[in-house]
């Protein structure tokens, strides 16, 4: 069957403009008192969202500081009591963390903190009413891109004016009713925004300084599980805004020359999305880097789709320093990809893998072994795909299940089908085949450590493979045979996982639910088998690490290392699709 039949007609996926007027960052209101702001959020991979906000606030003349989020309110209370900020801004990245943020906010209020509390992030933008209802200590929500709205809020608070008329805000009225103002206009030219404030990041103290950078915001693709397009659709303005290539390269070179950073992680949702224009844009960035005289001294990583990979663009990007590619593969099953609205076939993934391997580039990828419409057939197909794609150990096989996040098409679809379960903050669903629920619960038990922890093989191998292929001649210390050995270990890791998964699929499909409940011995045995093999591999990885780093003085070791660049924090586990692990 031809896949194009499933493509929505008349809906382009190219970058397109929606009706909106571009705005610039407002200046400080001369009548306003300077406001002190404490921004609180996760600092994983620099958290550029917070640092753009910090920079916007500081540039106009208010004063912002950043604190890393912790679940302990005393940690914040001490600093808040010392510095007495006028405003505290909470950056909620993960929807499921909302109740925990709520507890921290409640504790701060109970301790007598009277500062204005506001919150931003994807979930808060989509569901401000729910957030304000569930977190009574919160005064407002800054919706969608926050730079303009936050600065306006500070200006209003600084002059004691009623901020509740401000576009982009949601708040609780005097009567307790939750109100949403129309959204703020979008800053279409991202280069009008000041560069993210990185002063408090200790790049110089890291043996391999790694900086996150944004060349663009947004993504025009409409994958069913993703909230990025809905986010930019709802706020108006272009679905993807590109910065000027020269501005991007200038920022990189400044960080390289003045902050010792050689590795850059582009956090763009899809670096190559947007047709020929976007590819030309990406190649211009690479060309400018190549011409800068720093070729070979800086390396960068991008994220993209597999159908955007071709030899021509890869050669160009590599000349500029491309060292690693993250691909949103998501499924190796044709029907699964249709359900995800990926507009792609599995062969395209395989082709991209071949091109990347031929180029000698490391890559990793996202993969959802299960989605709400999975069948045992599709799971088998996904396992076979993983074996074909990375059975050779070029990359480590991660896998999780799809979660219906707020604002996504899949959330709406499950809602319409009456299948949306769980809570507002932790949406959930059951599979159509109840035996797949058994399979999923078993999968979490068997692969939790491997797939979702910092000590797990996925995290360790991702970091080590990245290092082994790092295209920085002066800094790379991994030899060709060491690299080959690492791929050998990764191949064992992947094939063992595929074997374990396949055994479980065969067993669960051929056994009644009643018998599965009565006799868990076989599935328990598979969990034990997987753990034994993982332990063997972790020991071998430790040996490999000693081999590559006999003096342990270069990049920090697999455990606790790479967090700067290749993170999988404990807190990310829900985002990785294991939210239902505890539901039973």
């Amino acid at each position, binding site marked *: 069957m031809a896949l194009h039949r499933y493509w929505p007609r008349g809906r382009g996926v190219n970058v397109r403009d929606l009706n909106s007027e571009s705005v610039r960052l407002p200046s400080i209101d001369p009548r306003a008192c300077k406001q002190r702001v404490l921004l609180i959020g996760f600092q994983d991979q620099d958290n550029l969202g917070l640092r753009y906000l910090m920079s916007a606030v500081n540039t106009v003349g208010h004063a912002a500081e950043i604190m890393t989020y912790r679940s302990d309110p005393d940690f914040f209370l001490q600093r808040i009591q010392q510095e007495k900020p006028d405003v505290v801004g909470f950056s909620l990245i993960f929807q499921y963390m909302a109740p925990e943020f709520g507890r921290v906010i409640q504790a701060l209020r109970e301790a007598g903190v009277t500062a204005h509390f506001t919150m931003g992030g994807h979930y808060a933008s989509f569901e401000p009413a729910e957030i304000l209802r569930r977190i009574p200590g919160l005064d407002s929500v800054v919706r969608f891109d926050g730079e303009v709205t936050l600065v306006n809020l500070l200006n209003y608070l600084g002059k004691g004016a009623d901020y509740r008329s401000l576009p982009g805000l949601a708040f609780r009225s005097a009567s307790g009713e939750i109100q949403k103002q129309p959204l703020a206009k979008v800053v279409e030219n991202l280069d009008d925004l000041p560069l993210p404030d990185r002063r408090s990041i200790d790049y110089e103290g890291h043996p391999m300084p790694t900086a996150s950078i944004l060349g663009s915001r947004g993504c025009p693709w409409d994958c069913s599980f993703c909230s990025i397009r809905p986010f930019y659709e709802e706020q108006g303005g272009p679905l993807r805004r590109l910065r000027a290539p020269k501005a991007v390269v200038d920022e990189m070179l400044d960080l390289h020359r003045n902050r010792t950073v050689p590795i850059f992680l582009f956090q763009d949702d899809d670096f190559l999305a947007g047709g020929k224009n976007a590819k030309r844009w990406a190649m211009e960035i690479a060309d400018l880097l190549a011409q800068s005289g720093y070729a070979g001294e800086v390396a960068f990583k991008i994220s993209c789709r597999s159908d955007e990979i071709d030899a021509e663009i890869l050669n160009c990007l590599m000349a500029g320093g491309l060292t690693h590619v993250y691909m949103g593969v998501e499924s190796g099953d044709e029907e699964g990809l249709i359900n995800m609205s990926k507009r792609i076939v599995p062969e395209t993934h395989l082709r991209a893998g071949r091109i990347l391997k031929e180029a000698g580039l490391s890559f990793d990828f996202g993969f959802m072994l299960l989605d709400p419409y999975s069948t045992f057939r599709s799971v088998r197909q996904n396992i076979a795909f993983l074996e074909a794609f990375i059975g050779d*150990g070029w990359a480590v096989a991660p896998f999780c299940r799809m979660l219906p996040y707020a604002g996504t098409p899949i959330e709406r679809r499950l809602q319409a089908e009456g299948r949306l379960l769980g809570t507002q903050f932790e949406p959930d669903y059951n599979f159509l085949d109840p035996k797949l629920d058994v399979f999923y619960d078993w999968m979490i038990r068997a692969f939790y450590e491997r797939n979702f922890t910092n000590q797990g093989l996925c995290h360790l191998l991702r970091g080590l493979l990245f290092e082994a292929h790092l295209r920085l001649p002066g800094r790379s210390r991994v030899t060709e045979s060491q690299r080959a050995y690492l791929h*050998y270990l990764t*191949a064992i890791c992947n*094939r063992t996982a595929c*074997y374990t998964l396949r055994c479980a699929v065969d067993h669960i499909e051929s056994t009644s639910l009643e018998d599965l409940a009565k006799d868990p011995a076989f599935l328990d045995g*598979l969990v034990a088998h997987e753990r034994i*093999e993982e332990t063997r591999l972790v020991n071998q990885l430790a040996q490999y690490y000693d*081999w590559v780093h006999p003096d342990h003085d270069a990049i920090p070791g697999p455990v606790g290392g790479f967090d700067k660049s290749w993170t999988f924090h404990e807190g990310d586990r829900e985002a990785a699709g294991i939210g239902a692990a505890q539901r039973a």
Partner: protein
Amino acid sequence: MEEKSMATADDIKKLQDRVSRLESAVGAAIVDPAGPWGGGGGGVIPVHRPVGDPAPIDVSRFSAAQLQSSLHSINAEKTRLAAMEGLVNQELEKRKAKS
């Protein structure tokens, strides 16, 4: 105390004789399993090999769970051997290409 815990020259001689007998039985040199960097005297890539033929195995003595567990172990070794085969073949291909 120290002297008692150290092997004497005679002990070493006995061990060497034993290794020689085993080597003549399997028809190949026996070396320590090498680390990935090829230590331990080198010479062969460490794969699990029984020394001599295994004794007869009466599989009927094992429970289903034990048999299942054996299958997993066999598969684990097959997986490792297949990956090792890939590694060795890759190296051989490289050598061929160079020569």
